């Protein structure tokens, strides 16, 4: 292979890996109560929220890093991270997208996410979060007509304080776990969604997160409330530049589905995974959880291809009777990536049902673990779970693990678990090549086929994206 070709290949590996030269206002590294006060003051937050953050911080100080996940990384020095970074032009916050620094808009265009409404994907409203702040939300007026609120969480704190105060931390308590506590203390921005009673959100909502600044962490907080009988579909996408050092991303997402509501939450996670030797990349330690009330439905769909280390278990608390929880996941690891991901389905309501479809793909020297908990509480009369957990290995240096935990304390509850492990065999590759396909195309076709059941769950335009993303992420996994 010529040097040119090699360079082209390597360059193609992570196409979102560019750094944007945008002047920023970044807090020096370090974490203490003053830093939290600074963040809170910067955002002009009410007193209760500052107290809420400080309380979380004090809790965090007493907690220990979790060690149970099947991942291995250098300990994180929390004093080396900067907890706040905002593009300079945000000193005087723009009032609308028209006022946003064109250079910032360009960054999003480069990523394929135009924020000018006229160029937007039809029917998708976008909130874009750059390092620590939201740079603007599209289609707000149109959404407001339907009574839907879609804005950054910082704005929501000011404009809808009662809602925020009522629901923030109601699903993921401040001291839920180490990373959730950290997030609660220092979260900077994220999205806020409120769908009023009986409303079907007229378009897909989505948020794009981008880490740009070096040595910064991203701690976003998302809160979605679907009132009785409402419907919403939300998608988040994530990218970051290529850097040699590891960067921390510790998000919290809370979903509240009141009676008869439906929330569909999809993620395409493509944070920088580090280079082929495991240098750099994002540590993705995320807590995502939803509470489903009577007859409501929460679906998590995720396509996880990025990050050096992923630690993530989008979960459902099926509190209501006849509530439904779903988890559809594709997690792909290549080179030195590590993922420990899965879900928790906590069945409290009668006849609550859950479905878990997990597809793990490991290539290179990577390690990919599924960890899932299904708990049937004593009052979950007639509850059901179906879990299907498939692993696909590419090459012979990668690893797949499955850790299913089942706790059933109601004899009428039914839990079904199926697991398979398969390998992309040399014979399959040979067949494809004999028919004219090159090995990389063959692998990506086989992997796409393996993930079909999950891709079906993604909104149409993102299913195509997800397929392409897998193809890029698999580069260099064969031959």
């Amino acid at each position, binding site marked *: 292979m010529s040097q040119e070709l090699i360079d082209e290949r390597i360059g193609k590996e992570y196409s979102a890996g560019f750094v944007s030269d945008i002047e920023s206002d970044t807090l020096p590294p370090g974490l203490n109560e003053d830093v939290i006060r600074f963040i809170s003051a910067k955002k002009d937050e009410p007193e209760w929220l500052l107290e809420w953050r400080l309380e979380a911080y004090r809790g965090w100080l007493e907690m220990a890093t979790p060690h149970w996940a099947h991942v291995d990384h250098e300990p994180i020095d929390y004093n080396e991270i900067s907890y706040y970074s905002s593009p300079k032009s945000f000193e005087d916050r723009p009032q609308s997208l028209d006022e946003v620094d064109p250079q910032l808009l360009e960054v999003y265009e480069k990523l394929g996410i135009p924020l000018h409404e006229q160029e937007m994907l039809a029917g998708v409203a976008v909130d874009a979060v750059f390092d620590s702040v939201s740079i603007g939300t599209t289609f707000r007026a149109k959404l407001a007509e339907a009574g839907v609120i879609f804005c950054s969480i910082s704005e929501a704190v000011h404009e809808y304080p009662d809602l925020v105060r009522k629901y923030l931390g109601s699903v993921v308590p401040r001291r839920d776990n180490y990373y959730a506590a950290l997030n609660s203390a220092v979260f900077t921005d994220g999205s806020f969604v409120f769908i009023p009673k009986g409303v079907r959100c007229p378009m897909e909502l989505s948020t794009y997160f981008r880490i740009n600044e070096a040595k910064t962490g991203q701690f976003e907080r998302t809160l979605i409330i679907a009132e009785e009988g409402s419907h919403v579909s939300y998608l988040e996408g994530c990218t970051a530049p290529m850097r040699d050092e590891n960067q921390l991303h510790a998000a919290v997402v809370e979903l509240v589905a009141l009676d008869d509501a439906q929330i569909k939450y999809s993620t395409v996670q493509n944070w920088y995974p580090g280079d082929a030797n495991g240098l750099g990349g994002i540590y993705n330690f995320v807590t995502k959880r939803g509470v489903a009330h009577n007859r409501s439905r929460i679906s998590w769909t995720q396509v996880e291809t990025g990050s050096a280390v992923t630690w993530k278990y989008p979960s459902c608390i099926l509190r209501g009777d006849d509530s439904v929880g779903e988890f559809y996941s594709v997690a792909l690891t290549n080179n030195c990536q590590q993922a420990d991901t899965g879900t928790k389905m906590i069945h409290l309501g009668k006849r609550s049902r859950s479905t878990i479809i997990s597809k793990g793909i490991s290539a290179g020297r990577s390690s990919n673990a599924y960890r899932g908990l299904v708990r049937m509480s004593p009052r979950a009369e007639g509850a059901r779970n179906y879990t299907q957990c498939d692993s696909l290995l590419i090459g012979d240096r990668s690893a797949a693990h499955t850790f299913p935990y089942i706790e059933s304390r109601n004899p009428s509850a039914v839990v079904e678990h199926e697991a398979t492990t398969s390998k992309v065999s*040399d014979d399959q590759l*040979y067949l494809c090549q*004999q*028919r*004219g396909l090159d090995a990389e195309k063959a692998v990506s*076709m086989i992997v*796409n086929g393996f993930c079909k059941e999950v891709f079906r769950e993604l909104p149409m335009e993102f299913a195509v994206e997800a397929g392409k993303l897998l193809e890029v992420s698999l580069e260099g996994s064969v031959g």
Partner: protein
Amino acid sequence: MLVIENLHARIGDEDILKGLSLTVKPGEVHAIMGPNGSGKSTLGHVLSGRPGYEVTAGTITYNGEDVLALETEERARQGIFLAFQYPVEIPGVSNMEFLKASVDILREHRGEEALDAVTFMKRAREACTLANLDHSFLKRGVNEGFSGGEKKRNELLQMMLLEPSLAILDETDSGLDIDALQVVAEGVNNMRNDTRSFVLVTHYQRLLNFIKPDYVHVLADGRIVRSGDASLALHLEEHGYAWLDDEVA
């Protein structure tokens, strides 16, 4: 034109092909027969470039090009097609998707226009009908859960859609019922023309009742030990391979 000269090939430490020579001109049909384990499938795999086979001596050229210097997929793009003796399954990848991807790449390589989805679909359905496979097989995973005979007919389906210039059929007639055998024979006969060549590996003379070969060869212990016309197959049917040992020895 395919020219194989003095081909020696091994798998691991095992020498399998030991000086095989064969020339197949455009438009010709050659049948290769021979005892189990004599190297017939090996020949097909060496031609199509299966990893793990080492060529220790000899040459293969196809239309003047050095085949051994080409990657597996490049050989396929030159028009070399192998119908596998044991087709593998690719779960989750539909036959349709698989065939479309190969047809696209092969057409591109031949400098032909890409087929739009509707035209492709139409051709795929027609080929299914010819291979006597229900159209629903296009939606199923590649060979996934197919019966033995269905797998063989699926190889035929692929050959018809990919339109190779050299097709090697490795026991595509084995395990077929008599009707399916005719289907395969008709498929081959329909595709025969002045430029396309076939190499049919078979154990049964009856296939050759339906497809008239130009030559019949006997492969034994990694070499072609006997070549003749169609009558050689009849002779083998009657006498087996033992008489050859006496002659070779």
